[in-house]
């Protein structure tokens, strides 16, 4: 066994532990720099694994293109979050354990991405969840504690559901490996097991009807952590869904194709319509995350149509969640950059175009991308989703049409924020301080979005290769 393949995880884990110890006698900033360094290092080593395709620990730990691409995404979002937290953490008491918790969450996400066994998956999930509870409550404000409590309660409930599912698979086959789920020869039992598993994962994606925790948690958490939740933790559930569904596909495609399609339509519609009514900027983005999760699910629902479309659907899912990570992460980082100073109501954003021109410009790019308008990545990924859906059967066309209608609805609330930023006169005309530590991550996210938007072929080719490799 070549343990070097686990080097990215090892680096993150070591850095997390070091950060914890270093935190006893050093201040937060140094620990922050350390974790940034460790994350960059881990990113580079992960890049190095791109062509690897092996398993470790007798199938418990997989390294394949899917795992690598998700690890890169997870490391990127935690890198962005760590950089933009350097300033705010000082205000929250300069406690270095913040960085350690972020690193542990990242570690949990990376393990989930690589899991070839339901037990590994569960461990990854729990590590992600447990490390993120205190992060949500980090500011110790009443609202933060409350939202962390809600997050914890819902999360614990659905962990139990996931475990039920795992126990069913184990009971039926005598093995907990993900591949063994395929060998359940009783159809109802297989359906029941996948039902429990997918409800458990679905909770973390925040799709309707498992979405209740999401808005409260996002609005209560510190804004950088909201970015982390929307950009990172949701994607953990998607990687789990992908792994389980690819296995479940051959036997269960009729049932799950339909169920996922219904869930996708519900999520899109509920997310977008409720977001229309939101005045709190973080709640608005949280509901938009629910809607975007619905868009991502479209790809999975389409993937249940066997054949060529399975690869195209999965590729569309991968592309949209990649893009969503950067645009929603970026949007929350933009909120983090200014909201401590101006507030969280949409009215507070009036005149931001003049008060904080750099942040407002980046926010505009993220909004354009979220709304799916040329020339940004959000447009390309929605187009790929649309093409994948319209190439499939009648259900796909219904999905595609509801995606189109929902995109139109979403333009209203994204446009409203843009309008407040650029056209409404502010009450207070003073400049807002824009820190370099929040500009850098926003710039990275915006550049990624624009590059994918202006020249998509390499990224589309990449996700198609990953999807094809996954289905082999």
């Amino acid at each position, binding site marked *: 066994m070549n343990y070097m393949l686990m080097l990215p995880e090892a680096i993150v884990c070591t850095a997390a532990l070091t950060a914890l110890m270093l935190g006893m006698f050093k201040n937060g900033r140094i620990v922050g720099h350390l974790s940034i360094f460790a994350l960059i290092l881990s990113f580079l080593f992960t890049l190095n694994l791109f062509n690897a395709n092996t398993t470790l620990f007798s199938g418990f730990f997989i390294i394949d293109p899917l795992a690598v691409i998700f690890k890169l995404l997870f490391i990127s979002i935690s890198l962005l979050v760590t950089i933009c937290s350097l300033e705010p953490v000082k205000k929250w008491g300069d406690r270095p354990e913040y960085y350690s918790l972020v690193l542990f969450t990242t570690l949990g996400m990376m393990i989930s991405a690589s899991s070839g066994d339901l037990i590994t998956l569960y461990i990854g999930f729990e590590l992600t969840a447990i490390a993120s509870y205190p992060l949500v409550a980090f500011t110790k404000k009443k609202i933060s504690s409350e939202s962390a409590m809600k997050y914890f309660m819902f999360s614990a409930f659905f962990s139990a559901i996931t475990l039920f599912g795992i126990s069913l698979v184990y009971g039926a086959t005598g093995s907990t490996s993900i591949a063994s789920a395929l060998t359940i020869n009783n*159809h*109802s039992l297989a359906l029941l097991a996948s039902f429990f598993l997918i409800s458990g994962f679905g909770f973390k994606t925040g799709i309707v009807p498992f979405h*209740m925790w999401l808005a409260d948690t996002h609005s209560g958490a510190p804004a950088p952590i909201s970015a982390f939740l929307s950009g990172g933790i949701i994607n953990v559930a998607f990687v789990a869904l992908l792994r389980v569904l690819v296995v479940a596909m051959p036997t269960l495609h009729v*049932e799950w194709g339909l169920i996922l399609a219904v869930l996708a339509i519900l999520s899109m519609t509920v997310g977008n319509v409720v977001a*229309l009514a939101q005045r709190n900027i973080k709640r608005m983005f949280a509901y938009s995350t629910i809607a975007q999760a619905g868009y991502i699910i479209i790809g999975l629902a389409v993937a249940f149509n066997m054949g060529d479309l399975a690869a195209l659907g999965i590729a569309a899912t991968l592309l949209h969640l990649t893009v969503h990570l950067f645009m929603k992460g970026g949007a929350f980082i933009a909120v983090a950059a200014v909201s401590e100073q101006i507030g969280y109501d949409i009215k507070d954003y009036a005149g931001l175009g003049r008060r904080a021109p750099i942040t407002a410009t980046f926010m505009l790019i993220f909004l354009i991308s979220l709304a799916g308008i040329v020339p940004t990545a959000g447009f390309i990924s929605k187009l790929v989703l*649309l093409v994948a859906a319209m190439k499939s059967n009648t259900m796909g066309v219904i999905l595609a049409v509801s995606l189109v209608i929902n995109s139109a609805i979403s333009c209203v609330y994204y*446009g409203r924020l843009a309008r407040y930023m650029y056209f409404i006169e502010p009450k207070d005309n003073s400049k807002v301080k824009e820190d370099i530590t929040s500009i850098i991550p926003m710039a990275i996210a915006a550049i990624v979005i624009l590059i994918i938007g202006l020249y998509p072929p390499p990224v589309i080719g990449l996700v198609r290769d990953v999807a094809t490799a996954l289905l082999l």
Partner: protein
Amino acid sequence: MINVPVAFIFILGAFLVPLLRGNVRKAYLLLLPLVGFVDLINMPRGTGFVMDFIGLDLILGRVDNLSMVFGYVFVIMAFIGNLYALHVKESGQHVAAMLYVGGSLGVVFAGDYLSLFIFWELMAISSVWLIWYRGTKISLNAGFRYLLVHVFGGVCLLSGILLLFNSTGSILFEQMDVRHLNVASYLILIGFMLNAAVPPLHAWLTDAYPEATVTGIIFLSAFTTKTAIYVLLRAFPGTEALIWIGAIMAVYGVVFAVLENDIRRLLSYHIISQVGYMVSGVGLGTMMAVNGSASHAFTHILYKGLLMMGAGAVIYTTGKSKLTELGGLHKKMPVTLILYMIGGFSISAFPFFSGFVSKSMVIAAAAGEHMAFVWLMLTLASAGTFLHTGLKLPYFTFFGKDSGINAREPPKNMLLAMGIAAFLSIFIGVYPQSLYNILPYSVDFAPYTAGHIVGTLQILLFTALGFFLLLKQVKGTPTITLDADWLYRKGAGWFVWIVNNPLADVGNMVTRVALNFFTALLWFSRNPVAAMKIIVGMEKRDRYPDIPQHLEVVSSNAVFVLIFLSICIIFLLGGGQ
């Protein structure tokens, strides 16, 4: 010579504008359309620039006679518009205008629905900035309504495209089978008609255009409705319903213009009226009618641009736009008046002006199909057009009661742009063959016959006579016209209210119920046996232990197994084997 789709010259060129300053920028803005024109002439005929997008072919260069007519006039208009807007300082306006032109050219040369849709949306998104840059609260709100209406149109269009692809497996942008329209083609048709401002989908035009910037409206009045005419000509020629829709539009625009007091809103209603001729031509679908529509779009872009530029010059120098507030400007702005009147004569189809050679083709096509009533409506609308844009507007703006406003001629570049448009309008009127040579089909139509000229002059002169006899009755009054736009002005308000109140309540209720459920479950799971006893009334509520001291392990497990089994049973009964 390297050749790119002409749309890209404008789209990519737009991004350079903010980097340039002063005279360099002015030169660049004038050079860009010229480069575009050279590129346009050199575009290879046939189907070119095919790109692969995950298995679908995107065709960016379908070049034939029909697309070239629109390509020429769009590039010419981009030049005139840029010249007219040369003095504008905000680079954002120039960027928006160039993206808008690029989007329109992209639509015109798109050979498949997907790339058509992309450029279609680009047009909507970029053009709204030409309204927002006015900077007033009214223009801001009007811009938002404009955007939302176009997003709605985009949704219809894209849904139609998706359905079409699903049923035929092709996204090629070709002529529809107009005898057998299905849901997909109707959705596409609605999307197209919305941009062509067909009543009752027209209200965005008269709502938003008058609130645009002085220079922005020149672009707006030229591109959106005319690209819609192009796509209708391409996909729906011969759709019978469009004949009547077009004839009604022509009259509708004129009738509503009667009630208008704002000069640019009056002209906007005349856009609807003129586009009605073109829609009618699409509906007739004969070779002559298609020629008529295309050539009328060509001339209309020029003379409507000229009229809008004239009105813009008045607003630019006086800051007023109401007929009741203007008057007696002929001494102060004589050049503007003359140039405006050339536009007025063109739109009214005076002989030797451009409108005469194109509008008469549509009317003659209607006569050729023996559609007497359509012919009558179109002819009447023509008289009404002269009444308002050729007589009422100039009379009350430049003559009439002297309002004593301080005015002067607009800047040189504005006058020059108007001059070019005026020259082209007269040139086409005097030498119609220049236009006829580039039309999709060979033209077998002579506009300058004695009967034709005499007939037109009779109608126009009697209109003029009527106007001066009834001068008191036709003058503008400061009223607000109620049109179809109140539907979505009010409708949007209701929708937002429903989302904010009843829907939000339902959402909160669902969240509360779920949260209570989980809290109860947590409470229950701490000591299920005690909890059961409390629920059935064997124990008092306050006897529930904080710490599960007397937890009977076996019975607790039994409760959980029961819950689990009941879930399984429900599930299996519902969906299992």
